[in-house]
């Protein structure tokens, strides 16, 4: 009986994002289906909670019907636009068998094996999500707490700090460990429970599985657009979706780190492909996902702002006004976000700065290179960067934008764990690996493109000789 509403609740984000993205994306694109469905689903998963938030803001009680109707209306509009364009509108599902057919048999077999392994992984994780009730620590401390209350009251009842709750006597307010955390992830759980019509601690976590699959599709699609062969793209997609800590965050769903990793990666990929192809849809995607980072988790704010130096260093003089407009918007948004949280947040942050944390460095290195959180990602990235340096202009031209963004992100990550009180999160392994999964997909995307470039150059050199 839950199958229909559950499926509908998962399908609506896919259709919402997929149909609108399909209108914007140019038609002849490699792996277009994966690109549109993957990025579209992520768009839908990020937008629907904002619809719910917006409806609540204007006094509409949280309900599947209200949000669903709004979503459905937008889907109908997208379909109408497709019909209006007639044959000029590209089909959303445009499989491209030629890429597969042109591969040697051994490559085709490897492609299929990898695909089967990915399907097995997704089924394993999906069953884990379906059977297991909410489990992880932070989920019951400050994510699902909001979901449970908002679902019960059909309204985004405010959450405040303990001392404020006490002073207000708990009148019309609730409290949890982090009352100021963004609303996107809890609202996704509310969305699922509203669809089912009851609080279900397993079904409400299915968006995490959907996020994983969408991230994989988007990753594959964007790699193909960036010029990677089908096999390379599939190989690296397998690597992305097989990382243990990413899998754990699906199986033990309830945290926001996976969503932030997927969103930031989607922004980076779209940003890179916008810089190289100047495709407007990719540019809009990059902007959308960059801003959305701030709506998923607190760390999303610094990740979003890594695009500022990247933009400043890459976009040419003729886009000066575009740059300024984007910078101004991001600046205004930052001020809005800071003002809505705590105006003294900068002063608070400065108080957390300490001297160098040797334990933090040890913990970080162990988490990346010794523990199996991300399999061999650390080594792959090191090798890819080292080999990439042998190709002239790799980081100063071809991949300047994405490299600058990621370098800023990694720099901030290291500063957090080496020079602030949060270094304890590295030495005790309670936070460093989780933050790694927010950056790992983007780093792997860069590694994949470097690897592809090395292979293409080698093939060209062999042909010439």
């Amino acid at each position: 009986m839950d199958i229909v509403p559950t499926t509908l609740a998962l399908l609506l984000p896919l259709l919402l994002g997929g149909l609108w993205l399909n209108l914007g994306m140019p038609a002849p694109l490699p792996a277009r289906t994966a690109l549109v469905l993957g990025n579209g689903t992520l768009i839908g998963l990020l937008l629907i909670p904002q619809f719910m938030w917006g409806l609540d803001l204007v006094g509409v009680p949280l309900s599947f019907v209200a949000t669903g109707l709004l979503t459905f209306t937008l889907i109908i509009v997208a379909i109408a636009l497709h019909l209006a364009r007639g044959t000029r509108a590209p089909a959303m599902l445009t499989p491209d068998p030629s890429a597969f057919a042109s591969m040697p048999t051994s490559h085709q077999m490897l492609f299929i094996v990898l695909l089967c392994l990915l399907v097995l992984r997704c089924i394993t994780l999906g069953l884990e999500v379906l059977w297991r009730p909410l489990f992880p620590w932070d989920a019951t401390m400050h994510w699902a707490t909001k979901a449970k209350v908002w679902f019960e009251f059909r309204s985004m009842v405010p959450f405040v700090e303990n001392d404020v709750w006490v002073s207000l006597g708990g009148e019309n307010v609730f409290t949890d460990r982090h009352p100021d955390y963004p609303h996107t992830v809890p609202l996704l759980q509310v969305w699922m429970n509203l669809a089912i019509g009851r609080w279900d601690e397993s079904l409400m976590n299915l968006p995490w599985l959907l996020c994983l699959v969408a991230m994989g599709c988007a990753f594959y699609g964007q790699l193909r657009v960036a010029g990677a062969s089908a096999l390379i793209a599939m190989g690296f997609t397998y690597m992305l979706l097989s990382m243990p800590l990413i899998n754990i965050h699906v199986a033990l769903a309830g945290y926001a780190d996976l969503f932030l990793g997927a969103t930031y990666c989607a922004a980076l990929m779209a940003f890179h492909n916008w810089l190289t192809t100047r495709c407007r849809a990719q540019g809009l995607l990059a902007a959308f996902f960059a801003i959305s980072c701030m709506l998923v988790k607190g760390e999303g704010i610094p990740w979003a702002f890594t695009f500022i130096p990247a933009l400043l260093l890459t976009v040419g003089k003729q886009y000066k006004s575009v740059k300024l407009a984007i910078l101004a918007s991001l600046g205004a948004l930052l001020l809005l976000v800071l003002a809505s949280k705590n105006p003294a947040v900068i002063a608070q942050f400065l108080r957390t700065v300490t001297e160098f944390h040797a334990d933090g460095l040890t913990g970080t290195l162990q988490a990346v290179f010794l523990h199996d959180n991300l399999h061999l990602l650390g080594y792959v990235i090191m090798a890819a960067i080292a080999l990439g340096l042998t190709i002239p202009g790799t980081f100063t031209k071809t991949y300047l934008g994405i490299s600058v963004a990621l370098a800023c992100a990694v720099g901030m990550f290291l500063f957090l764990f080496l020079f602030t009180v949060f270094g304890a999160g590295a030495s005790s392994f309670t936070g460093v690996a989780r933050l790694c999964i927010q950056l790992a997909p983007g780093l792997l995307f860069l590694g994949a493109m470097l690897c592809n470039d090395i292979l293409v150059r080698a093939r060209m050199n062999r042909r010439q000789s």
Partner: protein
Amino acid sequence: MLRVAAISLLLGAAALIVGLTQFFPPQNTAGEKVSAIAWNADTAMVTVGTPTFIDNALQLELDSSGAGMVTLAAGAFDAGNFAFLHLALEQSASTVGASILWTNARNPQDSKSYTIETSEREALWLSTEELRGWSGEIDTVSLRFSGRAGDTVQIRDFSLFPASATRQLLAIKSDLMAYSPWNVAAMNTFTGAFNSASFYPVVLAVALLVLSLLAYGLLLLLLRTRLQFDPAVVVLIFFASWLILDMFWQRRLLHQLVDTHHLFAGKSTEEKLAVGPDAKLYSLVAHTKPLVEAADARVFVVSSDHYFRMRTAYHFLPLNTYWANYGPALPPKKSLRTGDYIALINPSQFSFDRQRNMVVAPQRQGLRAELVFSDQTGTVVRLK
């Protein structure tokens, strides 16, 4: 390309095996070959629990307190002579805990133990080098079990072996195949290895990767007239190393899935919570919630255990719940009012004095209250 990559990987794997056994051999203080201390069910001493003998296997039924203990008939021996321990256990319930205990011959009061972390105990090889405190002269070695009364454990092997290359590889295999169910720290980090493991899996995978790349380099050198450097081979070697590492992870996921299915499949949310890791906390809350009179009642959760108070507070939602992450467990008395509920979750510095109908705590004023519900997990009261 595929063939060259495969040969490089095979050579790399061979080099890894040789390297592990020759350059990282287990300690072996025995000057001459020492015989293994083999399991013999007839001579093993059962000190706790009820034994039944089946061939050379000993089936131990845990006693009324859920305890069981078996000591190996070994006599005193030099710990350094026995680099490996082999266990073959079959348990009636996966929740039965097992530990290895050993006592020092010079100081029998000085006993050390290692709690077996993995649930894969049917053919478990442990490197004793990794057991903290396994040194000197050992007087007794025992297996201790803890579970529910009536649980059974069949011990088919509990033996000590001197060092050998084969056993070292078997121990590494046991390390890679080890498994235990998710715990609350799972979201933060996955090391891939238990405390008793000799190597992190990533270290082994990197070693395989490096040795395979060196093997490829050697092939290029030896066959330079026929073979040209192809970066695709390097990529394949990297990828194969990742894939091999990932297969152990996939196996672990499938094992976990079986456990999850066994515990939760086919149940409603309430039934899942009633059997899950928070079963006792959830039971207390499930009994209490129907007794809460006002829909807007406030619930204060106190406990000395951070996890217990956080989870209990979560299960009390969507009642308006308060729990302190830091600082005083309860707000000051003037902030509390009649009709508030307080959940005292064990262990707690707060307690309910049934004689005086009062919530008491050191250095705090008592709070007049009436009992709402109580069980082994805790007590819920309503302030008067």
